[in-house]
């Protein structure tokens, strides 16, 4: 059985600022990041959809201790965003000063771009991720 939307395809789309997900033909749920089985009903019968990348911040943190090789990135902000389509996704929050990263961020609306993690010796290649900016 073939994997409908692989990481490779998801990654290439995200590098063009396109957030792809899977819509379940059985229950309608949106699964992103992509999997073999629907996140709700576990059916493999899903079709590729493009998502808006817009949503609301659910939680956040400012990271000050980096993993080996990523020291130049700190401090950076990680967020969990609830997309307008209802599903949560992890990404970074940019265009803010870390001192602005307070509880006030929760429920703020964001829109999406992307950045690419170039990869390291453990990662089997590069990987894009969503980066979010506060909507003004």
């Amino acid at each position, binding site marked *: 059985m073939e994997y409908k939307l692989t*990481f490779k395809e998801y*990654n290439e789309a995200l590098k063009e600022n396109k957030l792809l997900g899977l819509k379940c033909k059985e229950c309608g749920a949106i699964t992103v*990041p992509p*999997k073999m089985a629907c*996140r709700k009903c576990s059916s493999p019968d899903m079709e590729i959809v493009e998502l808006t990348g817009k949503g609301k911040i*659910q*939680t*956040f*943190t*400012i*990271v*000050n*201790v*980096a*993993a*080996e*090789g*990523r*020291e130049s*990135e700190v401090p*950076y902000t*990680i967020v*969990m965003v*609830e997309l307008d389509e209802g*599903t*949560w*996704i*992890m*990404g*970074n929050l940019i265009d803010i000063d870390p001192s602005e*990263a307070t*509880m006030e961020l*929760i429920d703020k609306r964001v829109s999406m771009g992307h950045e*690419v*993690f170039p990869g*390291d010796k*453990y*990662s089997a290649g590069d*990987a*894009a*991720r*969503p980066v979010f900016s506060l909507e003004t």
Partner: protein
Amino acid sequence: MRKVAVVGVGETKFSGPQDKTEVELFAEAAMDALNESNLKPKDIQALFLGNVLGDFAEGQGMVQAFAAENIGCFNIPASRYEGACASASMAIRDAFMWVASGFYDIVLAGGTERAATMGTPLATRTFAMFSDSRYEYPSGITFPAVFAMLAHLYSKKYGIPLEKLRQQMATVSIQSYKHGSSNPKAHFYGKYGDLPVDKVLTSFMVSSPLTLHDCCPFSDGASAVILASEETAKKLTSKPVYIVGIGQSSSGPLANQQEYLPRLRAREIAAKQSYDMAGLTPKDIDVCELHDCFSIASLIAAEGLGFFEFGKAAEAWEKGEADIGGKIAINPSGGLKSKGHPIGATGGGQVYEIVKQLRGEVESGRQVEGARIGMTDTLGGDGGTLCNLILQRGW
């Protein structure tokens, strides 16, 4: 299924970077467990060993085969368990099943790890491997960042102002340090026994809102647990500690748990399995060693295991209800925070503590008087692997 008992336990001191190898550490813990059980290496029929990052820490894979040979358990089946920080618990749960089924009579389980020896940058990189490498690591997820986000979510969801929650989280660390400071096996033995709240709050901010003192250390260490069938156990010891409940569950990445966060559903499922199997409820547990990788993780764990209502654990800790003499004694060993966290070995260390508590063999300042039923709880990754055990006095 037969009844299965822990007959003997051993563990090394958990510590910062040190020079003994993973095999050497486990060998010391295992020989202590064998001596305590009045057994010889030739009596062990199989080895179930937790080890997560030996490949990175020492360039050592398949450590379980070398460990078995090293201690004189020649040619026995030896298996490695990897569930991040839940590895040793998984190993013990499986070991239990092989004995309960009647396939083996006497087995050795536990774990070994040199997380501290790796140093912080590599440890931070490798611990991030317990998150999703494709869909979480690119954002720069680190293990503290996972629980930091859960802390902010906990504040929001339960309406506890962040400043207050941070003070309550500090009481969790302070309680753990108090007990660990009098535990000779603890990473922070003799340290931080009297740490004031503001020292916790103002220490280095690792991943907001978690400071250094909200976070458990990286540790080196090993643990060993010997399990035997009831019939054999009764010949070996007058104080068999029976494993009466086991539970295990898994989860995917954090985003896929959105309906439950900051609750970790896998723990609740695993805990129900072990309570149901044992015919017990949370009220029956006298002492619990749970997964306090971060102060907030203690609150989430205590609620997930059913000791306090959701959103109420923070005030319970403040009131002393989660300490010896309270509603339930949590982490009298000092927990991961103070006793330490050599991840592949931690679950075995929790069993070590519970067995000593039930046998009344713990230093008096942290002995839970009359403890008869204990529980252990370990979590790996973003709530990806949860495993718990319920243990009960057999005398």
